[in-house]
């Protein structure tokens, strides 16, 4: 804890806006009360989450050294939340609406990363900035310093309206309808702390896009997505938004559905308010896994949802802010610092020429470009943040934006300044070419810091980056154009669903040891505004993922039809062929002693484990039979995907259900070997009695969620007959299978007494 914490309040008193000062004072008091055990730990946990103060891996005081789980001897104080030590460092998420940053804010972020964190600021896939290893006592001082430059962490996490994201090119993009930035700013101000947005069962994520064809803002995968559109009425152009709702990734991904093809700007804020009220009132509260807006829409159907939104909107008491916040919006336009220019003749600087090709985009304003600063894994140092501030001051009016691809974008660079900007960036170690190309890999925190991480998404991303960077410009353009995104688990914070090639972390057992794996996710699409979501094809051991990637990309180059894009190619050849291509990589693990690195994750030399799992005690027939059944279950999920690809949704839904029964049977067989899937009722009954009623199957974070998938499917096996519902069934079957693996590993390690 910093000795200086009490000093900041007085020093910054005149600079912190009143409403933020009150908010931070309140939080400081709550910290004090919790430290005296005068606030319940669960209440305090939600309180701090709503200020962006998040947990981090090992904050339960347990850490595996590879062989066994060891206790981290944090002082015996009150907790910060259930199973969360007070002294355990955590993550501070800092909301940056639509990623917009100015030089003063960049400098404060630099100072905070240096003084409170580990010297790195991290740009997230939702345009937030995250600092890691923060002590809870330091957070009020940190928040005051942010508030002094008009940044709040309020509602950065928790069951609240999260950061309002937006395309980083809004206002300068050649393809946009109009600049949606001021509207994003208005929605942020309107919903922040709004009383109608305080009673959600889960988070609510809004996003803005300037056009419908590019994925820069990802409006399609948000709870509330607003895309700028212009229509002409009687020869007069009118601005408005196409409004979509109920999108999201995570365990059960959904494309958003259209609420309104054209909404007038004056209706934007009251409609958002009406949606928030409905979500707060009718959204699921008890079962977290069903508590996002997409499930309410699914339950009601889109027609009823629309009716309810309109009815709620009609009932709202008039609020002057609906129009005040969007008044004079055209005066809000960014201005350049330097006059427009011409691109100078390129010299022989190979790196700069490459950077110009890949990192610059022409603005719609003649003579200006945007420059993307490619950040490795979204990370940058305090010195680099200050350099970006300097460059933004010297060459622009201080206009910087963070992107959903974990980069920064400088806007309004006069073309004649391009060489000087490159040189300044390069001197700061920020001149890397290849922005938004195959080597600019997006990755969530994964096992580095996230409590839910299963495999090392950042370790894998760093490894693939290095390998792709070596190949560099020699890579075929078709490969350079691919997008790779990696998540440490199925929750998809790395947005693996919308990558050309996505990966998410899972674990498997090979040779009696746990081995980190990644599911290869194909069929997703970044183009056309993240137009489709991918599905897992096969799980590959982490250390073989680079080989898998080489095979997929080589195969694509060899077998594509002229100029065929990757998603179309995958659709044409089918996932079965890809699976065949990679099949041998899933087998024949080396003996542990011959290659122990195979049993460790990328950038983490410890023997891989989840929690305190080591080499198990069970062996022999039961294990063999279990593995046999589970292999069959995974094959069934895959078959279901193929059926869905072949437009046979009803069969896909049925096969997904069978896969669940097969996996449940695998677990039951450990105890009771007379069970047969010819009688699914018996499988489910035995599973329920042995694993559900005893809570052995419960996930520490998700509770009964995965078992509920099985019970729901069993209750109505034929219900998943539309493409959407079959897709959900497949996703749920996949997650159920992962949960069976987890439960099995727990049994082997802890040796639970299972007989009932």
């Amino acid at each position, binding site marked *: *804890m*910093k*000795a*200086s914490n009490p*000093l*900041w309040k007085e*020093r910054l008193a005149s600079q912190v806006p009143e409403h933020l000062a009150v908010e931070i004072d309140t939080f400081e008091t709550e910290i004090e009360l919790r430290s005296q055990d005068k606030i319940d730990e669960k209440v305090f946990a939600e309180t701090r989450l709503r200020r962006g103060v998040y947990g981090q*891996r*090992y904050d339960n005081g347990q*850490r595996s*050294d*590879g062989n066994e789980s*060891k206790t*981290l*001897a*944090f002082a015996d104080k009150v907790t910060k939340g259930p199973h969360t030590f007070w*002294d*355990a*460092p955590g993550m501070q998420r800092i909301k940056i609406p639509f990623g917009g940053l100015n030089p003063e804010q960049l*400098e404060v972020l*630099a*100072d905070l990363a*240096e*003084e409170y964190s*580990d*010297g*790195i600021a991290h740009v997230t896939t939702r345009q937030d900035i995250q600092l*890691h*290893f923060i*002590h809870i006592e330091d957070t009020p001082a940190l928040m005051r310093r942010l508030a002094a430059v008009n940044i709040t962490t309020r509602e950065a996490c928790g069951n609240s309206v999260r950061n309002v994201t937006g395309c980083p090119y809004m206002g300068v993009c050649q393809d946009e309808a109009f600049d949606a930035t001021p509207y994003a700013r208005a929605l942020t101000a309107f919903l922040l702390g709004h009383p109608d947005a305080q009673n959600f069962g889960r988070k609510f994520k809004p996003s803005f896009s300037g056009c419908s064809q590019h994925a820069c803002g990802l409006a399609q995968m948000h709870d509330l997505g607003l895309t700028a559109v212009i229509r002409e009425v009687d020869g007069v152009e009118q601005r408005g938004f196409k409004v979509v709702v109920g999108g999201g990734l995570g365990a059960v991904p959904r494309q958003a559905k259209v609420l309104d093809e054209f909404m007038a700007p004056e209706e934007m804020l009251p409609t958002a308010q009406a949606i928030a009220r409905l979500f707060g009132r009718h959204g699921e509260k008890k079962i977290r896994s069903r508590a996002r807006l997409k499930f309410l829409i699914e339950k009601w159907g889109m027609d009823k949802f629309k009716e309810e939104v309109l009815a709620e909107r009609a009932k709202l008491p008039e609020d002057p802010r609906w129009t005040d916040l969007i008044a004079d919006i055209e005066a809000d336009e960014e201005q350049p610092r330097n006059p427009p220019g011409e691109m100078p003749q390129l010299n022989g600087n190979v790196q700069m020429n490459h950077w110009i090709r890949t990192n610059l985009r022409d603005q719609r304003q003649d003579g200006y470009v945007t420059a993307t600063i490619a950040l*490795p*894994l979204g*990370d*940058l*140092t305090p*010195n*680099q943040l*200050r350099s970006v501030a300097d460059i933004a001051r010297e060459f622009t009016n201080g206009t910087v934006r963070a992107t959903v691809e974990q980069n920064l974008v400088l806007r309004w660079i006069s073309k004649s300044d391009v060489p000087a900007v490159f040189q300044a960036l390069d001197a700061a*170690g*920020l001149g890397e070419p290849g922005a938004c190309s195959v080597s600019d890999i997006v990755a969530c925190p994964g096992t*580095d810091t996230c409590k839910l991480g299963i495999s090392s998404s*950042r*370790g894998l991303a*760093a490894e693939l*980056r290095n390998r792709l960077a070596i190949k560099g410009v020699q890579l075929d353009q078709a490969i350079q154009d691919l997008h790779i995104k990696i998540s440490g688990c199925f929750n998809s914070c790395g947005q693996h669903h919308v990558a050309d090639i996505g990966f998410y972390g899972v674990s498997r057992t090979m040779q009696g040891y746990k081995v980190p794996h990644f599911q290869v996710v194909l069929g997703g699409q970044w183009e056309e505004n993240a137009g489709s979501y991918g599905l897992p094809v096969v799980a590959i051991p982490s250390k073989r993922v680079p080989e898998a990637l080489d095979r997929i990309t080589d195969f694509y180059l060899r077998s594509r039809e002229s100029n065929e894009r990757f998603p179309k190619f995958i659709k044409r050849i089918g996932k079965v062929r890809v699976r065949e291509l990679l099949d041998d990589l899933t087998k024949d693990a080396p003996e542990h002693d011959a290659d122990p690195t195979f049993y460790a994750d990328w*950038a*983490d*030399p*410890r023997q891989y484990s989840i929690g305190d799992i080591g080499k198990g005690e069970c062996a022999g027939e039961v294990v063999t039979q279990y593995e046999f059944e589970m292999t069959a279950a995974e094959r069934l999920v895959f078959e279901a995907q193929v059926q869905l690809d072949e437009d046979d949704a009803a069969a896909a839904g049925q096969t997904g259900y069978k896969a669940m029964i097969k996996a449940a049977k695998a677990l039951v067989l450990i105890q009771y070997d007379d069970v047969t899937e010819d009688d699914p009722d018996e499988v489910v009954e035995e599973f329920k009695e042995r694993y559900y009623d005893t809570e052995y199957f419960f996930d520490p974070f998700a509770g009964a969620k995965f078992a509920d998938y099985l019970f729901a499917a069993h209750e109505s096996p034929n219900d998943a007959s539309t493409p959407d519902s079959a897709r959900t069934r497949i996703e749920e079957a996949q997650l159920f299978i992962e949960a069976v693996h987890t439960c099995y590993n727990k049994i082997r390690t802890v040796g639970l007494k299972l007989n009932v």
Partner: protein
Amino acid sequence: MELQHVRVKLFVDGELDVDLEKVMETFHGWVANQSLPELLIDVVDYRHVPHGPSVMLIGHEADYGLDNTDGRYGLIYNRKSALDGTNDDRLAQAIRSAAKVCTLLEVEFPSLKFSLREFEFTINDRAIAPNNAETKAACEPIITAFVQGRLGVASSNSNYDRDPRSTFGATISLESDLDWAALAAQ
């Protein structure tokens, strides 16, 4: 002036000639065995960040790291918890802690050597020590006396020249070799 949150960097002599993956392995071993006085929590890999912290060992009271800021590798000790005692005690504690880890790493990696003629110190807290002339005026005599008294060598040069936005600190060059090992053993 009370100096808290001292951060010191002991520079690697010459080019870094060690596999950082192996250094991470060593750090993981230290976490497993809680080999240092602080509560050790985790190991972080920032090798992908140019001129960044490289590999770090995160602790509760302090962080360690083989840091590459400004393109110069060195062992850093960054004190996070406040400490009682005098300014000299706090400066000495930071240098001793860093020196101890340098010694351990030199044993583990014989190709790794740390300079005995130079170190960098920083007060990693802008409220306590804003990077300005006043702080320099108050702090410089404290540092000079510390180097001559507690470390027992004369400083040939103290460079306080930094970006005004940086934390306050200086790079101190010494007239004769410091005995890190003896310091570490204190």
